[in-house]
């Protein structure tokens, strides 16, 4: 059982530099993307650069810094199961919390948000 000693370490400096490049893309990507005219392109570009690259960065940190790439399959499954149940939570709750309206159900106008008399920009 030699799993607790890693035989070789990847070149961490190279991974680190790549992470920084991705970081730069994820910062400035959305800023450029916001100039786009097409709403659909804009949204997908922002989501892709912000969250897509975020996911890649997270994956790189998990794989090489946390050594998930050579970790037991059991551990990977454990983490995937946790994320699966979060997605399940989202799927089950979204019809009620994400969508304000539903079948035989609508918003009560007495509970408007944001309140009209309370502008969202606070006074200085």
């Amino acid at each position, binding site marked *: 059982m030699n799993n607790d000693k890693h035989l070789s370490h990847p070149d961490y400096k190279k991974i680190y530099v790549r992470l920084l490049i991705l970081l730069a893309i994820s910062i400035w990507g959305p800023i450029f993307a916001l100039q786009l005219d097409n709403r659909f392109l804009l949204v997908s570009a922002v989501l892709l650069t912000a969250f897509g690259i975020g996911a890649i*960065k997270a994956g790189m940190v998990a794989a*090489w*810094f946390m050594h998930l790439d050579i*970790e037991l399959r059991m551990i990977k499954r454990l983490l995937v199961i*946790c994320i699966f149940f979060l997605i399940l939570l989202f799927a089950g709750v979204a019809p009620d*919390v994400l969508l*304000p309206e539903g079948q035989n159900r609508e918003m009560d106008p007495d509970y408007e*948000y944001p309140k009209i008399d309370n502008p*969202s920009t*606070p006074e200085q």
Partner: protein
Amino acid sequence: MSDTFQPPIATSRTTAGLPTSRLGTWWVVASEIVIFGGLIVAFIMYRMRHGEVWAEQAEHTKLYAGALNTFVLLTSSYFAVCAHKAAEAGDGKKAAKLLVRTILLGGVFLCVKAYEYTSEILAGYGPLADLFWSFYYTATGLHGFHVLVGMIILGFVAKDAAKGKNLHRVECIGIYWHFVDIVWIFLFPLFYIASGL
């Protein structure tokens, strides 16, 4: 008591194929995933429900402060993993030195956070200004608390590592620290980048 404490034989067994300390750390990470995950799931649902109202609020977060913090955490993670490499090579002194750098960068992270909080609150965006800001302070505050706890544990591990003791703990605290880093990698686009939508 603790100096006479002898770990039981159970702790040194590895039936599952990996050291107990690392296995335990993974379970901690798994339970943290669902805690942060619950908060993030709630945030995403509200964010999509109040799209335009919240987009306007999100414009006021400090993108470059957040970006700087991402950079700081990535760098600290880099040092943490280098410390792990050094610890595995048996070089406790070098590992401790690298861990101290990680702690210092954690401190920088918290300082930037403090600057952000102060300027946001002074600009009128306190935790009660809007539900968006309640989420912002809760999520980043919970994350900041984890950074703080991580720094304290890192301190103990570094102290031991400098004496060449408990070197296996360098990897465990590293896993935790990288996890905190990953949480930030997701909080950063959620609160700072995707503000225009």
